[in-house]
């Protein structure tokens, strides 16, 4: 049983790591501000939930688990809010979202 | 591995000097204060590096753990003080910068000097 939990937690942890990597690459490579933010939000939500889920499995039934659950709840509240605030600030400062799918900025596509 | 034991001291030296460099060379007063806070943070690293003992834990005595190894608590106490000193200095510096901006209209050192020599 312990073995299974251990494997499962490592799977979760590595998946979390993978999504952090994806989010990082996305934040660097995406074409516009809003798409970058979209990519970065993967690290906020998916990746951190997976990592903390893995950690909970590692911790077992202890005080640490309670604290980790509290962290998840806190993240669920704050990270969407902060993303909203950033996007809203960008919109207010005059950055227009690209609605016409002109992804070929810089002539990368033919 | 032996050399890695000194890595902390090198980072302390490099970060300290980066901070000092910013303070000396930049004209912008807020940038100077940012440099100053990096400069101060580097010293925190020096003190905290000293406190580590191999295999030690944070110096909180727990019942039932026999013969524990603790890291050194004294530098931690000193740095708690230094952190508060740092934020106090920064706040005061920023208040002065705000006043400078209001009376000179600029926070660049060369502009301020130029405006004083106009008088």
């Amino acid at each position, binding site marked *: 049983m312990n073995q299974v939990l251990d494997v499962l937690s490592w799977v979760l942890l590595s998946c979390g790591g993978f999504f952090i990597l994806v989010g990082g690459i996305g934040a660097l490579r995406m074409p516009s501000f809003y798409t970058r933010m979209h990519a970065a939000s993967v690290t906020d939500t998916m990746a951190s939930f997976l990592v903390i889920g893995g950690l909970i499995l590692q911790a077992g039934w202890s005080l640490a688990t309670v604290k980790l659950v509290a962290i998840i709840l806190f993240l669920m509240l704050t990270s969407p809010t902060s993303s909203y605030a950033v996007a809203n600030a960008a919109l207010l400062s005059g950055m227009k979202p690209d609605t016409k799918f002109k992804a070929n900025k810089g002539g990368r596509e033919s | 591995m032996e050399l890695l034991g000194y890595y902390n001291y090198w980072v302390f030296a490099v970060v*300290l000097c980066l901070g*000092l460099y910013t*303070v000396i060379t930049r004209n912008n*007063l807020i940038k*100077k204060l940012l440099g*100053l806070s990096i*400069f*101060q943070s580097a*010293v925190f690293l*020096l*003190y905290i590096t*000293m406190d580590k003992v191999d295999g030690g834990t944070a110096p909180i005595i727990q019942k039932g753990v026999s013969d524990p190894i603790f890291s050194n608590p*004294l*530098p931690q106490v*000193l740095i708690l*003080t*230094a952190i508060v*000193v740092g934020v*106090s*200095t920064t706040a*005061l*510096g920023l208040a*002065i*910068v705000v*006043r*400078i901006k209001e*009376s*000179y209209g600029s926070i660049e*050192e060369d502009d*301020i*000097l130029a405006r*004083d020599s106009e008088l």
Partner: protein
Amino acid sequence: MNLNEHLAALQIVVPLLAVPLIALLQLRRMAWLVATLTSLMAFAIAVAMTVGVLNGQDYQYFMGNWQPPYGIELRVDALSALLLLVITAASSAALLASYHSLDTQIEPRRHALFYAAWILALAGLSGIAVTADAFNVFVFMEISSLASYVLMAGGPDRRGLPAVFKYLILGTIGATFYLIGVGLIYMMTGTLNLEDMAQRVTQVADQKPVLAAAGFITVGLALKAAMFPLHLWLPNAYTYAPHVVTAFLAACATKVSLYVLLRFDFLVFQDNLVSHPLRFASLLMPMAIFAILIASAVAMFEKNIKRLLAWSSVAQIGYITLGASLVTVSGLTASVLHIFNHALAKGSLFLAVACLAMRLPGLQLRDLAGCARSMPWTFAALVLGGLSLIGVPGTAGFISKWYLISALLTLGAAGVALVAVIVIGSLMAVVYIWRIVEQAYFQAPSNPAAPAAEAPLTLLVVTWVAVLANVYFGLQPALPLALSSSAAAALMGATP
């Protein structure tokens, strides 16, 4: 409960207790009253301890009743007693003067905060003088620095703000260097108590970190003490500060950093670093000579009276370090004595400037023409203070220069050359003081905005008390002399 044994702690605790009270008082006259009473009380404590020290009492105090090196130790010996006298007396005199002088410079509703900062500066400076713990010195150094930035930024001239900002940056760098130095020594010895440190540094086999520590501490404190190439913050910060603040801080702020420097170099390093006296002297002496010559020369051409006196302060710090750089008992005696006497002279000069500024806010030298006729008392005080600064016999300044010269003459030929430096420096002081006298006494009044009346009476009385103290200690130098010679002996006593 015997209060006498708690005096060392009360020296700091009384001002610290007063600070929150003053900050809460919104009535400015009340704030002034509480601040002045606190400062006078601190002065009384300092006097009581000086008497005790002269009678051979040792004021050693363990904070929280924890033995050093585990707890923080306070210690008052002759050197700290002398410093405490200077600090508390300067603060009390300047506070009494501020009753009138401050009204023209700071809006009344900000006075309570100003006085709170003042008493914080007082507490910080006396804390540095009292404590015997290297890190505790840093804490009180920061209290006094933060408070003095605030005080100096209070002036009405906008040029004061960049000047204070520069002081803040350099002061913080200085304090941080000091902190690095203390950290390095702590790393090698494991203690923060100065006495304990002095004993344990001897056992440190390898000296590289200790040497680096000595360098950092010396440079850091030299920055705070405005020693010669590191004095750049001082002239403008002093010039644009409110006048009473200049009188207070010019009398004691830089000296307190010098005091810590002397403590560290003579108590901790002296005994332990190979050829320390030689290194110390060879580094400090050229700086001291340059300070005396260059700063005096700059002062000769200065157009603003306050800035002129500020440059003269840089030169006078040179005299103090010159005495210390001899590393002899007589040199140190002269040095410590000059800390006391220069505080007297500069304090009374800046108080006289505060009187003058009541009627002539610009303080430009050319506006002075003929002012001595309408303000005879103010100018008489300026002249007497100036004479003490120059070192004319009969004034306090003479005594310390006399001791400095006799200490130098024991060195032989090299000493004579150094005496020449002092004589040249004093002659330059004659020139810059004469420029004020000439304008004020021998020029026809040309300025239409010339003052018509004398400064307020209380301000004049305080100034004259300070000036007469110059004369008194010039004729009766027994008290400062006893303190400084026993301080010098104690400092040198660390060497076998």
